[in-house]
């Protein structure tokens, strides 16, 4: 059995991981989801998370890092509590995606892949998020926000600041 003594994850996530590695024909198939779920809980994929995931899957830490570095959603440094991901790909660009990105930069006072000093928001310019027909669009953590205008972005940011935004784990 793969249960890890002194897991760095919450008991719920540790139990989920215990189960996850058993459901596939190969244990290693759990790797990509585990990295993402670990990041959801910790805010980023820490060295300790890499070590524990390697132990759980029974592969080298190097193999974990090899996969970790490939996927654009995975990060090895903390982001803000709310990571704002603005799409500027073609459909969003045509409907004002760059205007939205610039507005976010000005409002939050941060650039691409930067976190505001208070740690509440971080910003990221991302490639197509699959919301082309409701452009311009962005995600805050995992929540989609469509048909954006700068005014709508202001309202959304205020909602998140007031604790009315969702904090999706």
């Amino acid at each position: 059995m793969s249960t890890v003594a002194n897991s760095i994850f919450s008991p719920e996530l540790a139990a989920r991981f215990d189960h996850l590695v058993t459901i596939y024909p190969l244990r290693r198939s759990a790797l990509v989801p585990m990295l993402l779920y670990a990041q959801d809980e910790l805010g980023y994929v820490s060295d300790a998370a890499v070590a524990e995931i390697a132990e759980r899957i029974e592969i080298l830490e190097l193999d974990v890092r090899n996969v970790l570095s490939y996927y654009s959603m995975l990060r090895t440094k903390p982001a803000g509590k709310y990571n704002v991901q603005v799409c500027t790909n073609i459909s969003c660009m045509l409907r004002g995606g760059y205007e939205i990105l610039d507005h976010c930069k000005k409002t939050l006072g941060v650039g691409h892949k930067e976190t505001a000093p208070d740690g509440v928001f971080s910003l990221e310019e991302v490639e197509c998020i699959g919301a082309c027909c409701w452009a311009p669009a962005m995600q805050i953590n995992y929540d989609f926000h469509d048909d954006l205008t700068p005014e709508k972005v202001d309202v959304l940011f205020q909602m998140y600041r007031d604790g009315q935004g969702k904090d999706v784990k």
Partner: protein
Amino acid sequence: MPALVSHPDEVKVISRRFGMGAADIEKYIELDGYKAVQQAIANGPAWIIDTMKASGLRGRGGAGFPTGMKWSFVPKVSEKPKYVLVNGDESEPGTCKDHVIFLHDPHAVIEGTMIAGLAIGSKLGFIYLRGEYRYLLKIVEKAVADAYAKGFLGKNIFGTGVDFDIITQTGAGAYEVGEESALMESLEGKRGVPRIKPPFPAVVGLYGGPTVINNAETIANAPHILLMGGEAYAKLGTERNGGTRLFGISGHVERPGVYELPMGYSLRKAIYEVAGGIKDGKKLKAVVPGGASCPVLTADEIDVGLDFDQMGKAGTMLGSGGIVVLDETVSIVEFALRTIAFYQHESCGWCIPCREGTDWIKKTLTRVYNGGGSRKDVDNVQYLAENMMGRTFCPLGDAAAMPTLGFVKKFRKEFEEYIDGNRAGTPLITVEQLVGAGH
């Protein structure tokens, strides 16, 4: 939540349950859900494959391969387990159709997965969603759990003695993983780099076993086809292009949205009638007809039917059905640069022509865009793109080269005038924005 749209010309097959609460299993059952899979169990694999072949359904991910034929390629006897893999890694810019399927009718994807499994003799299916679609993954996970609770999945489904399981999987951000062999790598817990073919997945796929991999929309069509009959579905479309498909119309149109139209429907009507015409009464400049990788069509090339063969004859592709509409204000130089910037960002680096080609095209177009280009740069871009074509393991290299070639061939004059200082279109981005940002 994305708004649903409708138009009188729509023919609703796959979208027939959209907006009706069919993510709820009881509602899905009420709307003829899980009837097709029981017919499939009763009638057997040969009947399923014959019906799918008769339907003329072709892969909705973009390649347009006949689905029934794909299923028939899987060996009947295999030492290794066989698998069904549903590709919901929807990442082609301009494409958001699977998004609405997962949102409104997740059980159709599950039922379709089971039908594909029965057709090829598999007992395990995977539904892989891109990492960004977490809220949709939760909807699909709940639907799978509800199907297990009803005895529709697991051991002895519907009391027939047949076993079938489904595992849902999340990606973590990678366009490349939408390519079938890269998706298998990702599902095996590796970097999403493509595999050489042959062997094809139908023979050696996931975990080395014979695998059917289909786009989510393709799979979700299967229950509808079995219920209505292959011939009836085929009749909705054109010759060799059966049925209907979801078209996501985005960009400069009055009513962007995902519409279900018969195969062969006029591109002009899709833009001017279904999507309400060009936004703010402007003029049409160009259309990227099937996701970012499809060669552009100019405003006078849109009298073409939306099926795989007619679009092929028109020198482009039906692709993923993501129609991106550009009005007269768009600078093609800028649009071409933004397109290649995407492919350069997403190239996994495995094949040199793609890794270097996308990088050099982006660098060259950036120089042009920045005002420092020469006319020879346009030739260089074309040369680079032509030499990427067909020289990579997976289609990402082609996907980057094809739209680039379309832009420089069809809008060469605009590139040259831009270089000479006469710039068409209204710039949306500065070079600083492009170079300094996430690309």
